[in-house]
């Protein structure tokens, strides 16, 4: 992990905090996140879940994601990719990888952001006019990767 200066919170502390928040359901209940493997000491691999927002074509679907927090997190943004197939601007059609430049929270990442922020941002993207009516693959499909 990084050398922590006075101001920056060490990576693992941050991730533990996020773990706890995920378990306590901090937020509005439309996204959820947690460690992919409870034994992951490095707290690197996370799973996320986004509940598709209503009044959009994503409504009633639940999207599973993989979030990877690298060694420089939270100074660097995490890698995010969708597991559940989705047609959304900014998400590669082939493998579900989220384009860092397309998501504001990732493009303008700040170390105060968190996994939750990213998930909520993705959910917000689903509600944008340009996305909310995109035709979607049938449910239950996953990206092959």
């Amino acid at each position, binding site marked *: 992990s990084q050398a922590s200066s006075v101001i920056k919170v060490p990576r693992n502390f941050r991730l533990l*905090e996020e*773990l706890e*928040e*995920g*378990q*306590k*359901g*901090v*937020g*509005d*209940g*439309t996204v*959820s*996140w*947690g*460690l*992919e493997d*409870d034994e992951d000491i490095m707290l690197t691999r*996370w*799973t*996320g*879940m986004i*509940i*598709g*927002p*209503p*009044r*959009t*074509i994503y*409504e*009633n*679907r*639940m*999207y*599973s*994601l993989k979030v990877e927090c690298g060694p420089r997190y939270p100074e660097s943004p995490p890698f995010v990719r969708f*597991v*559940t*197939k989705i047609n959304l601007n900014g998400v590669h059609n082939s493998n579900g990888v989220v384009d860092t430049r397309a998501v504001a929270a990732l493009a303008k990442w700040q170390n*105060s952001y*968190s996994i939750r922020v990213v998930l909520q941002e993705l959910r*917000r993207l689903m509600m944008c006019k340009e996305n909310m009516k995109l035709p979607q693959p*049938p*449910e*239950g*499909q*996953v990206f092959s990767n």
Partner: protein
Amino acid sequence: MEDNGGEDPVNNNNDTTVSSEGSIIKVTVKTPKDKEEIAISEDASVTQFKEEISRRFKAKQDQLVLIFAGKILKDGDSLNQHGIKDGLTVHLVIKTAHKAGDGASSSTSCTSQVGSSSGSSSGPSSAAHSSTVGSTGGPASAPPQTPNILTGFGDLSSLSSMGMGSANFMELQQQMQSQLMSNPEMLSQIMENPLVQNMMSNPDLMRQMIVANPQMQQLMERNPEISHMLNNPELMRQTMELARNPAMMQEMMRNQDRALSNLESIPGGYNALRRMYTDIQEPMFSAARDQFGNNPFSALGGNSDGGVQPSRTENREPLPNPWGPPSSTNPSEGGGGTGTTGSSTTGSTNPSVSNPLGVNSASLGNGMFSSPGMQSLMQQISENPQLMQNMLSAPYMRSMMQSLAQNPDMASQNPASSPSAGTNPAQQLMMQQMLQMFAGGNASSQTPEVQFQQQLEQLGAMGFINREANLQALIATGGDVNAAIERLLGSQPS
């Protein structure tokens, strides 16, 4: 669907969800609209958990989808294996077979890669899904489920699914405010919503709303002029027109300024102006002044104190950045004679026909928000000055402004925190106070410490020893102890 009681040597009794042997844990089950605490044996299976949930939420078991820490809980799993322990929160999504008119996100479809027990109903629901895509745009009337204040507001009911489905109005308002702060488009969407506009064009309704605010009531008692103004429907309607149309408001204000300056030159006109000022504006400001030594609006209005004359500044240019350094303003200008030009950010706050409360939204930026803490908070909004204008124009904002005037804390903190600008707690306290103001007009004129005395004690008794954090949490939640606890437990400022 087997229980895993066998795996746990300690617990032998597994038939019901509440077993006498295994310890009971309390798990919070949270939907976007609702929240329940469910007691269940810690060794229970997901199925058993769902049984209990289906009872509590009055939904069929196969309609329930549970998510914990980003994973969907399958019936065959146990709570243990997912690490679900006492005090943690599990997310629940309730699928409903048909979704007509059900804009709220409590319904869902079948799960994705996990073939859970809901797989059986995947057939009909995905068929229903395609038909509902058409109907999601559908009925403007409310989903019947939520006792949510925004139901019945057509598009606004989607706000409820943004996590605002709380029965507590203050919490709702607060959430709304924080949503507004983070998403400027939302406000313009709200304003554009014809229903909101309709509501705002009904002077009676608006008057009721304004009058219902205890702050306003106090103010009205002290200054009958104000109630006079409020009772004049024509006036109200004009004000609301302006509120609805911020561009128009700017225009109006500018026209007013020009008209005023023209008036000056008419013999006797100056006196008329002066009269208008003393009749209307002064009582209002002196009412505010009563509360405390210095008048916080003096910095804002630039003219109220001492100066009997209305501000001479003409608002000739586009409203400048209200959060720029509070440079050119105030008392010196206000006292100035006729024809002083050079528009300052404080502009003219004359109450006029178009703007009875004399609120110049641009000017409000100045005195109150000169502290860097507040500035950083407002950065988002300042990127979109229109938003601020919109926000301030909303009628309930006006009553909030009144209450702002009456809250001595804001005033005393303002000069106090400027020198000590760096202190985080002070900034945060102010920010949270501000938020709380937004959240519905703190009715008390005491400091939050005094006001939340009782709640603070409660929190202390429960073991939250960090008084500062407790106070902040209470402020943010408006004195709601339970919400404050959640805040303290769940989130840390980052």
